[in-house]
């Protein structure tokens, strides 16, 4: 099978893939996206553009992706089900594909009450599994969900999210299997801090043979301070942060350096787990550290 994107090519060649996250700005200028692109060039195979993350309006992920393409980097466009119905989604996918976007991550999205416009009405016409079904049909059959033929079908490498830290734990792998059935080519996981639970999850994934059907990219997020670690533990939905990690950051003379070191150790560990094909680095508002993390983890020279 020929690769539809650089990210897919790297994964098909069994190289350890690196993806990194870029947060779109609360701005009508894409200058910060260009700056991050320059900082991170060469550090990752593809870059995720979040879609109004935590339900706050930011520059659109597709617009940021177009800027990234201009800069010569490969985007992963995140598309939530919170803000668009199936009509808008299919239209945006056609537009994104025309602009050169190949990687799309299908997600349900943070609920609007997490954001700063809690009074907004959500859409949820479809969910993330159904989003995969619709986009796969567009790609493989060259048809809209309605059945109408497309003159030109989009070229897509379809991604899904997986959260081994959400409940019910025993259903998490079954749900991943469902996403694979619906069309997921790759998955990016929630940030991993509880390595034991992640390894238990991966064992179940391997037992079902899912690691051979979908490319699994493990998520990491470097922690800047014990305060942020505590915030992740208590305030972010579907996240587990063990106390040992918070204590380690508290004891550290230089918590920022400790946070980077911890992330580097996590990446080295994840790389040793059978079935993990890459790492997704979410350095929120700390994007400039990605090259250093990647270098110290031995992923790039």
């Amino acid at each position: 099978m020929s690769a539809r994107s650089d990210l897919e090519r790297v994964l098909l060649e069994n190289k350890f893939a690196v993806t990194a996250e870029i947060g779109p700005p609360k701005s009508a200028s894409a200058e910060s996206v260009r700056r991050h692109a320059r900082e991170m060039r060469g550090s990752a195979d593809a870059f995720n553009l979040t879609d109004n993350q935590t339900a706050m309006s930011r520059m659109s992920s597709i617009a940021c992706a177009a800027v990234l393409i201009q800069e010569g980097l490969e985007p992963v466009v995140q598309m939530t089900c919170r803000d668009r119905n199936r009509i808008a989604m299919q239209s945006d996918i056609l537009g994104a594909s025309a602009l050169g976007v190949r990687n799309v991550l299908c997600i349900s999205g943070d609920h609007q009450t997490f954001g700063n416009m809690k009074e907004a009405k959500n859409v949820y016409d479809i969910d993330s599994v159904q989003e995969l079904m619709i986009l796969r049909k567009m790609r493989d059959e060259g048809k809209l969900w309605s059945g109408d033929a497309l003159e030109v079908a989009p070229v897509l490498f379809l991604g899904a999210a997986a959260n081994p830290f959400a409940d019910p734990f025993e259903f998490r792998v079954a749900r991943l299997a469902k996403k694979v059935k619906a069309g997921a080519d790759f998955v990016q996981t929630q940030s991993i801090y509880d390595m034991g639970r992640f390894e238990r999850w991966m064992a179940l994934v391997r037992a079902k043979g899912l690691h051979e059907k979908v490319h699994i990219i493990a998520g990491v997020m470097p922690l800047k301070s014990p305060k942020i670690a505590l915030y992740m533990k208590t305030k972010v939905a579907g996240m587990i942060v063990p106390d040992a990690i918070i204590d380690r950051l508290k004891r550290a003379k230089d918590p920022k350096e400790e946070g980077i070191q911890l992330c580097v150790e996590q990446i080295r560990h994840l790389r040793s787990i059978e079935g993990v094909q890459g790492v997704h680095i979410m350095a929120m508002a700390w994007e400039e550290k990605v090259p250093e993390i990647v270098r110290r983890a031995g992923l790039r020279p």
Partner: protein
Amino acid sequence: MIIGEQKKLGEIAIMLDGHRKVLVAGCRSCVAICLAGGEKEVAVLSESLRLLSTLKDKGWEIEEATLERQCEKEWVAELGPRIQGKDCVLSLACGVGAQTIQAMYPQVRVLPGLNTSNMGAPEEAGVFVEKCGGCGDCVLHLTGGICPIARCAKSLLNGPCGGSQGGKCEVSPQTPCAWEEIYRSLQALGRLDLLEDPIPPKSWLPSRDGGPRRIVNHEAVLTEEQKRMKGGKA
């Protein structure tokens, strides 16, 4: 049943400003069960409004009436003599009741004294919880008898999302995750197989997105002749 909640007294007072002769109209059905608009609530609210009127010199003349069902014309017809000469009706029924009164008495302004919320059930004394999304295409047979449309914050058909932890929804630690409940119910029923295949995108055509929905039971519809006969009797 339909669950509703009375508007705040201050909000009702603002709506009543400029009116004089007020009929507070309750309903003995759903809104009486959820303690928002039955006979007792009509009496309490009317007394509060009389007190407020005296204190703030509003000049309101408050009368009370509670119908068996405010959503049915047959019962609302009884209100005719009571509505004569009124400036407004403050309805403590659901939005359906308030609209039925307005449709039958177009000369009187109907004000909503209640916020209609959802289709639900009493959970425990004084607690009422939404249960049904009224989507017009029931999926309870696939979801262990738990409605994902009403009870999942994202109305997911292939949940639970990544925000479900410890049986709770990401939206609030007080809210049970509907998909955790669906999983447990199907587990107890021995039907976890129902969760293996993706449920495809739902048709929302029978849901509220297609304008007011209309359900006709043809056997119950009267012929023109039957209508004339019934009209003659009345």
